[in-house]
């Protein structure tokens, strides 16, 4: 926190701006809290109903299952007993839980069982540092991910609250404060207190947003390559829009429902290990990674790395070149090659592994299941027109990658501080899910806690559903302090006739409305705010 204050003071001194400074923060707080297992002790009270045994999902935190059953259209088949709910929460507390998650299957279609448990906890005067409810934390389909998301949200809530308090205590000179989310958008500090989980993995999101902010190929399709020391991260932009992970972010091995920019991390970086492989044809090949060797020899390390290869070849000047050449000589001797040949082959191996990873990623994306003929027959063209890259060792490795993939290469400026630029360029995003069932006369928007009756179901059509979704999104944006939103979209929608006994008895509408993530264009030094 001291560092944020120092940066803020420095910024104020450096910028000839009048008035308060707006802050956009990309923090590793929640990510590290989860990955390092430092979160608040949390238990989950779950209402799984029948179906797949939740234990098959291998969740390694305390689960307290309760009876109760909501079906796929949100009808309560069996209620949840308040007494049992309170007893479960009490038991969780006795087991050491300080925070709680309450999650039911299909709770996004009907949260009444989750609400009943929450009421029982409150009525029982049970105190928890934070309680997350499933339908708010993870409103999309996917009960196990909902359990994980609500659970992790409760784990990190206290840490985020402290952080938010500290930021606010910076006091005078502070304008609006926004936190970067995994989906490349931002949220307000207040939102981050109730849904801190959305700030996980904002690092990869920031680099993608930086690419969007800085690229000269606006609106094009590109693969964003961020070469680091240990890993290289790949992200995909299709016609100017970042692609999302299909189900949600995965953190610390936990699959969550947190909307996130798709980012593929491969164990290939400037500091990766180099392995000698004797190929069948008698030649010697190198394989790079996936683990890290340590610092390059040119910077005082002990084992040769890809960085040493490009330094030895004189394509990058970094540290002590003679030490890099020495390391490559030793590697070459082991492989029966001159140091120059060894260095070239290391670079080639790096390039071919990276190209293979890019091909694999696109292959997977193009093979992703779709559920309509329209999507099947008109799968959008994803393939990149440009490779955009960030990261310090980028140019030496990326030129041959560009040649191999026959794509123009863009090396972004400011690449060392790309993360900060991405965070600064990000704009607010929020989204909501509308599910309306005119046969049951029910309409839900779980993100806003809306579960209401449709008054005139016969007149409720697709246009009304869309209008409602977009209208509520505008309201939601104002509610959380984001003002008048721009770029609102229905990003996906489905509608179905409900037919029973050869008669249409109603319709189901299911749609996601969203403010799409976008990046403010940044050009020149003044652009950085």
């Amino acid at each position, binding site marked *: 926190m001291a560092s944020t204050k120092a940066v803020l003071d420095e910024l104020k001194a450096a910028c000839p701006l009048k008035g308060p400074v707006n802050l956009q923060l990309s923090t590793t707080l929640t990510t590290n809290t989860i990955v390092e297992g430092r979160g608040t002790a949390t238990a989950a009270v779950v209402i799984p109903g*029948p*179906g*797949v*045994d939740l234990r*098959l*999902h291998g969740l390694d935190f305390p689960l307290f299952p309760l009876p109760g*059953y909501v*079906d*796929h*259209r949100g*009808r309560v*088949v069996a209620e949840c007993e308040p007494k049992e709910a309170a007893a479960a929460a009490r038991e969780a507390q006795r087991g050491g839980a300080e925070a709680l998650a309450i999650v039911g*299957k*299909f709770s996004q279609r009907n949260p009444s069982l989750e609400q009943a448990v929450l009421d029982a906890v409150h009525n029982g005067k049970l105190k928890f540092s934070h309680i997350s409810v499933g339908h708010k934390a993870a409103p999309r*389909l*996917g*009960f*196990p*991910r909902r359990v994980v998301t609500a659970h992790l949200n409760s784990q990190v809530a206290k840490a985020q609250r402290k952080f938010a308090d500290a930021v606010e205590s910076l006091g005078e000179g502070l304008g609006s404060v926004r936190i970067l989310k995994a989906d490349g958008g931002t949220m307000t500090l207040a939102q981050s207190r109730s849904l801190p989980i959305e700030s996980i993995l904002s690092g990869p999101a920031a680099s993608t947003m930086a690419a969007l902010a800085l690229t000269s190929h606006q609106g094009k399709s590109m693969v964003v390559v961020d070469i680091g020391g240990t890993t290289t991260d790949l992200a995909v932009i299709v016609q100017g829009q970042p692609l999302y992970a299909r*189900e949600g972010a995965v953190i610390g091995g936990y*699959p969550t429902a947190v909307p996130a920019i798709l980012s593929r991390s491969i164990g290939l970086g400037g500091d990766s290990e180099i392995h000698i492989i004797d190929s069948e044809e008698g030649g010697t090949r190198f394989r790079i990674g996936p683990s890290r060797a340590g610092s390059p020899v040119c910077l005082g390390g002990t084992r040769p790395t890809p960085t040493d290869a490009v330094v030895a070849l004189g394509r990058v000047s970094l540290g002590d070149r003679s030490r890099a050449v020495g390391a490559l000589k030793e590697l070459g001797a082991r492989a029966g090659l001159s140091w120059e040949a060894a260095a070239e082959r290391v670079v080639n191996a790096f390039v071919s592994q990276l190209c293979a990873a890019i091909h694999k990623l696109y292959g997977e994306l193009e*093979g*992703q*299941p*779709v*559920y*309509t*003929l*329209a999507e*099947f*027959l008109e799968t959008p063209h994803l393939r990149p027109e440009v490779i955009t890259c960030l990261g310090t060792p980028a140019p030496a490795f990326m030129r041959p990658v560009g040649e191999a993939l026959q794509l123009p290469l863009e090396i972004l400026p400011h690449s060392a501080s790309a993360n900060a630029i991405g965070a600064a360029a990000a704009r607010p995003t929020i989204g909501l899910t509308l599910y309306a069932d005119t046969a049951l006369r029910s309409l839900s928007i779980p993100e806003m806690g809306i579960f209401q009756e449709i008054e005139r179901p016969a007149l409720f059509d697709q246009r009304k559903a869309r209008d409602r979704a977009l209208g509520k999104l505008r309201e939601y944006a104002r509610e959380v302090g984001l003002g008048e939103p721009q770029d609102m979209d229905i990003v996906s929608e*489905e509608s*179905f*006739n*409900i*037919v029973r*006994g*050869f*008669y*249409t008895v109603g319709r*189901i509408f299911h749609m996601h409305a969203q403010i799409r993530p976008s990046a403010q264009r940044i050009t020149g030094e003044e652009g950085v705010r």
Partner: protein
Amino acid sequence: MKSVGLIFFPAFDWCITPDHPEREERLLYTRDQIEEEGLLDLPEFREYRPRLATDHELSRAHVFVPNIRAHLTESHRIAAGGAIAAADLVLRGTEKRACALVRPPGHHSMRFVHGARGFCLVNNEAVMVEHIRQQLGPQAKIAIVDTDVHHGDGTQDIYYNDPNVLHISLHQDGRTLYPGTGFMNERGGPGAFGLTVNVPLPPGTGDGGLLYVIENLVLPILKEWQPDIVVNGAGQDNHFTDPLANMEVTAQGYARLTELLQPDIVVLEGGYSVEGALPYVNLGILLALAGLDYSQVVEPDLERVKPRQAQRVTDHIAWLVDELGQMWAGRKGVDLEAHFGKGKFFERKRMVYYDTAGITETQNGKIRLCSSCAGWELVESRSDRYAYATVAVMLPWNACPGCRGEAEAAYQEQISEKKAKKVVFCDPERDKVLGCTN
């Protein structure tokens, strides 16, 4: 770990007509259930895209009248292509087992296709089986166990005289349900007698009866016959909530059936209780395929309805299994001359009604009675929709040189006689389908 490849294509934008049982909504709740359960987050499952079946792949199993384009939508191609994609996952060793949840279904589609029958136009399983045989070669033995509540009459038609495809159909007795066939005495043609096994179950059959048939008839038959691939045509209309049939089977019953049968490939057939059955039956089948615990998969209506099987049904099924077991055991000792005559050919005439399309077809067919192979076949087909005849001359897999020569001559003769508007020649071993329009 048993890994399962799932090909799921609910075709959310395709229907026969908006209020038809085969409509957009059919797999909606199944999708919701699978996604809500997080099934694809389990390491045992991976989901794949279907693909479009090509004209050539479809023509290995069907003769379309007047032609493919007159009938097919992309949805049919994806359903058949989904089954092929599922088979490829298993054949290539990508997955241990595979399941194609695709629509529309296919098991009522016969060799000749003048239109849709029982919601089916393309026999997804037959197209898939022919694809498998092209990969595995002419000796491959494939068993199709059809557990849809309706008799798999289309599949039966295509494989009636094929000694390398065993077709076992469990269904509600044809006297009480569409399509009105599938009796015990339909046992296969002269070249594959006994390899069509029909199990007409009485209305009211529940989990107990269904599983009794699997354990005491189907599994012993499979054990003896030793197929290379077992395909399950998994219709879900035996369910106690199905609106079109009268059975009492539950999701638990279907899951246990799958666990017992251990099919390599499952292809969805019918099943029109879109809310009360499909989400739970599909879930149960998928869990069982992966060898996972399915004991908690319970339909919301189960407590209220309490499906059960009457004693007389149990007794009848015991008799049925006993009878069919004896028929199977004695199939090789049957006097085929008594069944098919002593002549050069076994001839038959029949009528086929296309309920979905409202077409009546008449067929005159003959199968060469051959001691060296299953015998070549000629079928002449007409319908009340088109005035002209279509003739198919079909070689069996592993045709003997004599049959090959005769069939080729018959094809040439049909072309020169110009009596039929269209003549088709099918040669599965060389993977050739020739067509000639007069």
